[in-house]
């Protein structure tokens, strides 16, 4: 149970998270676009941004920030390992 002021605080956090996610999406699209034009590799950057976005979604939208620590740690570890594996394979 939370106080009314915390409800408003959480709503602001959701809004901030949503705006950050949109900015990161635009950023990764722009970086990839520039890299495609330059013919350079972008996998590490765009997949790294994806990992950051996934942490924001899991932590704030899915409320892992308030989940039991073991679950939160498992999710974070999973996202880091998956991203590392994908970048290594690229």
């Amino acid at each position, binding site marked *: *149970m*939370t*106080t*009314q*002021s*915390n*409800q408003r605080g*959480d*709503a602001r956090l*959701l*809004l901030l*998270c*949503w705006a950050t*996610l*949109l900015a990161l*999406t*635009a950023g*990764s*699209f722009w970086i*990839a*676009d520039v*890299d*495609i034009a330059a013919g*350079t*590799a*972008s*996998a590490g950057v*765009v*997949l790294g*941004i*994806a990992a950051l*976005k*996934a942490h924001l*979604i*899991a932590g*704030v*939208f*899915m*409320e892992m920030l*308030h*989940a*039991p*620590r073991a*679950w939160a740690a498992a999710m974070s570890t*999973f996202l880091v390992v*998956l991203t590392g*594996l*994908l970048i290594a*394979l*690229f």
Partner: protein
Amino acid sequence: MHLDVRRELSGGTVIWLFVAVELLTFSLFFVGFAAARRSDPALFLAGQDQLHALFGAINTAVLLCGGWLAARGVLANRSNEPKTTARCFIGAAITGLIFMGIKLYEYSEVFAAGISLSTNSFWFFYLFVTGLHFLHVLAGVGFLIPTAWHAAQGTYGPDNPSTVEAVAVFWHLVDLIWIFLFPLIYLAR
């Protein structure tokens, strides 16, 4: 300030076990995609060049809007605002419909070019994995709409939040999967 410091899984343990299985399953496809690409990068680059990355970016933004709406609906349910919860979940369902509309347009272009699951390994992964994700979006919309209807009837509220939270967690899972699919298929080079 939190009055209750207990750390709990939003929506309960069962939906999170489901989330774990789903994430592991999709991860196998992601790793399979990356491994197949490593063995034939030119084929995968050629396939990627036929996709519209802008559509992928727009669909990402659409899903993120839906994710925000679902999370906002959960907050509204906790503060006993059933109409707001219903409106947020209907909004999230609409973003799912927009996503599917854009994806169907992309599929129509791919099929019009004579591409199918058996064309090559890039198109197999593209059609199979995004198709599987598409079905999850469809299921998410199918969960959001009746939950919104029940929320509007006052079925849930702060003392009965688990259905609202579990549906929102499923919707965020759909978002989370796409967050990796978008750069993997459309952007990474």
